[in-house]
């Protein structure tokens, strides 16, 4: 590791410690529905409960916004991410978005694009939609295989083209790279760039949810290193390709993302889940939930809870972090990679062979 990177990592550590004390709420996920119109093989939330779990009423969420959050923040500085399931399954999405926009919040969503018609897109933009990510997991055959829907690719491409034609929208494409697609990255890039994509975020699939039972989805260590090298070469060529935020990446830090690694869960990121639970990123295990909007004050929880997120020294008590020299920079990897029993399900540094 070169000296510049090492200094930057120490400065980042200092910045992160300050940020923990400040813990400004900057991103709020709302798991608005568990319903979904596809049945992805890699679904992290494993939305099998989608039929039986009702959507959270919009008024419940907006009550928290109005009474618990707005009095304490500048709405312009908070991005609300309407999450799912598939957010477009909610017929009142436009109304909810407009309500947030009128309150001064920026809002965005991630979608598979299947239900994003031109009319719906226009309505959402008029309701203040500021940021959107379209999931596209490969060329047609592999995308359909992963999404388990014959029109999934067509829908994603249509959505991408709608975004590309809108010059005032912040958007990107995210791709779950798996064993089927790891050797097709240049072809996928060419396809995406040919329809107007300029920002592409890629990531591996974590062994959780449905993906845990399907090893074909998960990259092996060599493939993971290949993915890192691919991103480095793309960025050197001037294309904005990034790895997702998860995972401390050792010598790849500063080369595959626009920022150094940090897990912002519980530090600047919170979530309200479908049952009202208060958490950080939506994929974090239930043990780490901090309260529930139907019983607790969201803001009190945000201010006084999240202790295990803001002081991660507990992660250093067990392997593989116990004797790891990178802990100062990594702090136990992402919160979403911690199992209920506190153990770590995936160490990116180990995958890269850089733990020594």
């Amino acid at each position, binding site marked *: 590791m070169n000296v510049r*990177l090492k200094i930057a990592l120490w400065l980042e550590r200092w*910045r992160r410690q300050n940020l923990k004390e400040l813990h400004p709420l900057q991103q709020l996920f709302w798991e608005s529905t568990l319903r979904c119109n596809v049945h992805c093989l890699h679904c992290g939330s494993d939305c099998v409960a989608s039929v039986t779990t009702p959507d959270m009423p919009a008024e419940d969420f907006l009550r928290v916004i109005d009474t618990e959050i707005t009095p304490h923040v500048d709405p312009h500085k908070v991005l609300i991410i309407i999450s799912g399931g598939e957010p477009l399954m909610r017929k009142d999405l436009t109304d909810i978005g407009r309500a947030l926009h009128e309150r001064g919040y920026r809002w965005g969503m*991630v979608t598979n694009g299947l239900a994003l018609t031109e009319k719906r897109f226009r309505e959402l933009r008029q309701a*203040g939609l500021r940021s959107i990510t379209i999931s596209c997991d490969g060329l047609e055959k592999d995308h359909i295989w992963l999404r388990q829907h014959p029109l999934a690719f067509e829908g994603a491409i249509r959505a991408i083209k709608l975004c590309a034609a809108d010059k005032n929208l912040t958007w990107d494409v995210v791709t779950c790279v798996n064993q089927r697609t790891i050797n097709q990255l240049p072809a996928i890039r060419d396809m995406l760039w040919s329809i107007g994509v300029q920002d592409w975020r890629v990531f591996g699939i974590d062994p959780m949810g449905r993906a845990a039972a399907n090893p074909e989805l998960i990259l092996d260590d060599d493939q993971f290193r290949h993915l890192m090298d691919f991103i480095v070469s793309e960025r050197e060529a001037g294309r904005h390709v990034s790895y997702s935020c998860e995972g401390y990446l050792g010598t790849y830090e*500063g080369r595959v993302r626009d*920022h150094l690694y940090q897990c912002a869960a519980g530090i600047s990121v919170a979530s309200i889940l479908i049952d009202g639970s208060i958490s950080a990123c939506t994929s974090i295990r239930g043990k780490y939930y901090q309260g529930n909007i139907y019983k607790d004050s969201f803001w009190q929880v945000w201010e006084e809870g999240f202790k295990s997120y803001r002081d991660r020294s507990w992660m250093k008590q067990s392997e593989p972090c116990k004797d790891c020299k990178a802990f100062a920079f990594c702090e136990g990897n992402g919160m979403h990679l911690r199992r209920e029993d506190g153990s770590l399900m995936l160490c990116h540094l180990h995958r890269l062979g850089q733990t020594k």
Partner: protein
Amino acid sequence: MRKKILSRINIALGSAIFALVGMNSCARQLLYGPDPVVKYGCPPDTTVVALYGVNMPVEEPPFTDTNE
């Protein structure tokens, strides 16, 4: 007061980090484009400020109704 000081320190730290490792071939996007700071499940944030608190000239459309 303490919060204000910490915020200012963080802005300085963010600038130093950018200077050390951030200014690569993607600098333009870093400063003026989407800032995908968060993991899958989240759309890109619309400001660099959200991540580093760096007071940089992020070119954003004004916060107005898109009906206009």
